[in-house]
């Protein structure tokens, strides 16, 4: 067969079929599915952060109007298998047992205590109010500094400590003095607790057919196969008798990637009642019981020489994960990425990092888009900027002096991350040109003269995308790093395409249709993509770690190539041509001169109905499945850089975002518009993290942010236009050369804003060290600076 090059519609900004459905109100989100004789679940949730359950009295609730079942631990024990979130690669990690409903102890506000199933949600809530839980309150562990104190209560007594796990990484000795340093700067940043806050809350509808013993769970989720595998284990069903459908998902961003207690309970209730059972979290339940994210206290030390070379970097991440690690992936990934990705793009001889995961009496902390990366980026870039300021260097100068050199690849970081190639120099050059740094700085200087306080911040980052099987597989966690794609060409020559990767709005479906159309010489409209159904698609990862195109697209490419070869083989026989001289273009089979020989639909038709025209041994399979998994390296590392331009009102402390720039290396862009919109959406989530978003608890572990008026996500008027540019470099594996793009926006945005605010505050000698950067944070920093005398730049020198 002739070697195929990438051709249209790859590289075109094709519109999305789903977008048209959504814009006309024809989405099919989980709660949109009707159910006959359906029931609704409501949960009784713990009002306190820690306590012993003495009794749960459900008698009154059971007698109420419309109530079909009320379930507590005693009612479901033995009907499912509890779970533990651990990783076999880390036997020392504490993995306390987790139950669908707690047997004796509650560990966070919002933890489900009992489940009510009734004929409407309102009636279920009425009955839930009449469930009386007698809980003996205990002191909560709600502070990260005291969790490890010897006299702290233990959240899980059988674990013997509130330390879930501690890890170190790098090539230096943690805590040792730096050699070869003219200056060592120390600092600590606090990152707030976030939540992904998808507009569609967690939603599910379970139905059990006792005749065929099949459980169907419609659920707003990113990883239907993972959930199928986990629920099969927990409920004792064969994986082939569990169907998980996630058709349209109203935002997920990592929050809908794990197993939640409600998922198990809704299935148990459907099996018990024989009726469909639905649960849709309300917004208060979402804030209390969805997985949260981030929250780190990271201390760092950077060692530099007077020539601007960074010679050492050390960081210490205290990461409070809540009451349990999330299941099945654990909460390690976020911290692990901080441990590994901090300073990953810099050539630093002595790098060390330490991570400690702590238990807290708060909701679980899990994955949120760009897992760990924004924290790694912000702490690194904050320290690099502090070093630059101390040495009197421009931010871009110190970066250029320390970026890994372009001719040093492939290489490994001190923490063992394989880097095929990073385009950091090209990205920085492009960024400075896009933002016209000289003009911006002169504007900044001019306005400073008028008392207007503006700042420019740059943040460079290295990101891990398209993760393979090396972490979860050997860790004993059935999360697929492999993805597959099934193509079925119909007799008409149209194609049904069933990828294992899922689409929550990223446009993965469209990108995959473009890849298949490109290989087969068809239009995007000739390809119908059906994803998010574990019964019809190959087993695969779904949506995580920016794998939709980098891994899922690769599988689609391979499947399409196989189908193409099949079509050319049959066409060659029918028309007495060497298949190697034929090509598929514009719905036709063409020869080397471009002359049309026959149509694809004619060949497809013959493969189904006219075996009389073909030799007996000629294959005619027009249904193909191929899988792809990154093998040579665990991650596909790539990179990008962002810049923010802000104005800080030093009277009110309010920060206004004036401009934002991104340059990113996504490799081959299958659909440039969708890539750019992925990046912009991610940036705005990062801007929310930088300035607005924070889940707050009081010192007793009581949740304070319970509505969307308390937990602020960015509005249209809060954010500026964002300029996105691309640099394209190659990949180590795969024919397409596409890298992940979904996380890049979030990865660098908050770090860029932090640096911009600190640039704005520089003339006042003030530094903010906390995100979100609220007006209060800014004013506190300004007051602290005013109270202390100006400090000489080399004060921290050893």
């Amino acid at each position, binding site marked *: 067969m002739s070697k195929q090059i990438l051709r249209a519609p790859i590289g075109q900004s094709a519109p*999305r079929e789903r977008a048209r459905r959504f814009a006309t109100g024809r989405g099919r989100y989980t709660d949109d599915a*009707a159910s006959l004789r359906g029931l609704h679940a409501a949960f009784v949730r713990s009002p306190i952060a820690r306590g012993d359950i003495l009794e749960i009295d459900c008698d009154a609730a059971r007698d109420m109007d419309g109530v079909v079942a009320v379930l507590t631990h005693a009612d479901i024990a033995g009907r499912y298998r509890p779970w533990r979130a651990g990783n076999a690669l880390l036997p020392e990690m504490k993995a306390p047992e987790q139950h669908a409903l707690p047997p004796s102890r509650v560990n966070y506000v919002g933890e489900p205590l009992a489940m009510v199933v009734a004929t409407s949600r309102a009636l279920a809530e009425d009955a839930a109010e009449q469930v009386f839980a007698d809980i003996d309150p205990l002191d909560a562990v709600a502070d990260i500094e005291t969790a490890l104190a010897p006299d702290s209560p233990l959240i899980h007594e059988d674990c013997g400590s509130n330390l879930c796990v501690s890890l170190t990484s790098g090539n230096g000795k943690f805590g040792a003095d730096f050699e070869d340093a003219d200056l060592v700067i120390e600092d600590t940043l606090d990152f707030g607790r976030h939540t992904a806050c998808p507009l569609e809350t967690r939603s599910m509808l379970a139905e059990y057919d006792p005749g065929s013993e099949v459980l169907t769970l419609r659920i707003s989720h990113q990883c239907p196969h993972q959930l199928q595998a986990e629920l099969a284990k927990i409920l004792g069903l064969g994986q082939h008798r569990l169907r998980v459908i996630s058709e349209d998902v109203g935002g997920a961003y990592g929050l809908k990637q794990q197993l939640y207690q409600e998922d198990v309970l809704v299935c148990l209730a459907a099996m018990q009642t024989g009726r469909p059972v639905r649960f849709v979290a309300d917004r208060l339940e979402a804030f209390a019981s969805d997985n949260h994210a981030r929250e780190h206290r990271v201390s760092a030390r950077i060692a530099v020489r007077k020539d601007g070379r960074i010679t050492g970097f050390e960081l210490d991440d205290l990461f409070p994960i809540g009451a349990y690690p999330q299941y099945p992936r654990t909460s390690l990934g976020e911290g692990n990425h901080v441990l590994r990705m901090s300073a990953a793009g810099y050539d630093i001889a002595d790098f060390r990092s330490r991570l400690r995961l702590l238990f807290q009496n708060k909701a679980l902390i899990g994955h949120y888009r760009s897992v760990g990366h924004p924290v790694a980026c912000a702490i690194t870039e904050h320290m690099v900027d502090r070093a630059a300021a101390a040495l009197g260097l421009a931010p871009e100068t110190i970066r250029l002096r320390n970026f890994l050199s372009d001719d040093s690849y492939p290489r490994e970081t001190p923490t063992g991350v394989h880097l095929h190639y990073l385009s950091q120099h090209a990205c920085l050059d492009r960024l400075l040109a896009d933002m016209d740094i000289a003009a911006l700085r002169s504007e900044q200087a001019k306005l400073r003269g008028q008392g207007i306080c503006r700042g420019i911040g740059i943040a460079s980052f290295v990101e891990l995308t398209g993760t393979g099987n090396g972490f979860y597989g050997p860790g004993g966690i059935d999360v697929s790093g492999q993805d597959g794609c099934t193509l079925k060409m119909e007799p008409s020559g149209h194609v049904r395409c069933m990828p294992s990767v899922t689409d929550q709005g990223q446009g993965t479906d469209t990108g995959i249709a473009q890849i298949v159309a490109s290989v087969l010489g068809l239009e995007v409209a000739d390809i119908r993509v059906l994803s998010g159904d574990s019964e019809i698609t190959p087993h695969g990862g779904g949506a995580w770690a920016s794998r939709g195109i980098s891994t899922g697209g690769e599988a689609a490419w391979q499947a399409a190539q196989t189908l193409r070869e099949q079509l050319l083989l049959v066409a060659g026989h029918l028309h007495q041509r060497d298949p190697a001289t034929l090509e598929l273009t514009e719905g036709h089979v063409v020869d080397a001169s471009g002359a049309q020989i026959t149509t694809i639909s004619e060949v497809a038709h013959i493969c189904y109905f006219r075996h009389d025209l073909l030799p007996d041994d000629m294959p005619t399979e027009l249904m193909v499945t191929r899988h792809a998994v990154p093998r040579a390296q665990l991650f596909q590392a790539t990179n990008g850089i962002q810049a923010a331009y802000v104005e800080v009102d030093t009277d009110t402390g309010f920060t206004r975002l004036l401009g934002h720039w991104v340059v990113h290396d996504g490799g081959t862009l299958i659909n440039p518009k969708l890539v750019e919109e992925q990046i912009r959406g991610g940036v705005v989530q990062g801007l929310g993290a930088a300035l607005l978003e924070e889940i707050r608890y009081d010192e007793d572990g009581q949740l304070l942010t319970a509505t969307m008026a308390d937990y602020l996500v960015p509005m249209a008027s809060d954010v500026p236009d964002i300029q996105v540019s691309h640099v394209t470099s190659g990949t180590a594996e795969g024919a397409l050369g596409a890298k992940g793009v979904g996380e890049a926006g979030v990865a660098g945005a908050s770090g860029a804003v932090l640096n911009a605010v600190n640039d704005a505050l520089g003339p006042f000698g003030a530094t903010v060290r906390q995100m979100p950067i609220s007006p209060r944070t800014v004013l506190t920093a300004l007051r602290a600076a005013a109270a202390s005398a100006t400090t000489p730049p080399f004060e921290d020198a050893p």
Partner: protein
Amino acid sequence: MSEPRQSVSLTVNEERHDVTVPNRKHLADILREDLGFTGVHVGCEHGVCGACTVRIDGAITRSCLVFGVQADGAEIETIEYLSAQSETRDLVDTFVAENALQCGFCTPGMVISAAALLAETPDPTREEVRAYLSGNYCRCTGYQAIVDAVMMTAAGRRAAKGERA
């Protein structure tokens, strides 16, 4: 004790519906659950996110903040209907062409609010678009493509009328 209920008469998308609903049920849930207009989305049920935006007697309204019984006799329009009307179809087409939506959950409310903005202000600035749509949260897009789509629709309408583009 059974829930107090009332019958209400709603005209939705030019069709009349008579339903008996619990007094405490809000209009968004009635439109979705009783009448099948699942293009009405519920994101917060406390009036912040804007996903439940519909038109009631011509005015954009958060249907999670209206009890069904309050809407008795009202004329309601949802995205299913509005997206098919000639006065909004260009806006919907531009949303799709500009990828002004990702997961699509905010989109029905966003389109209805954007249509109201363009009816009030045919020639808005980007800042005016951002300010007007600030009551409709979108967690996916970062808003820029939405602003682009609204601006392009406005320009297209002016061009069609022979005004400057």
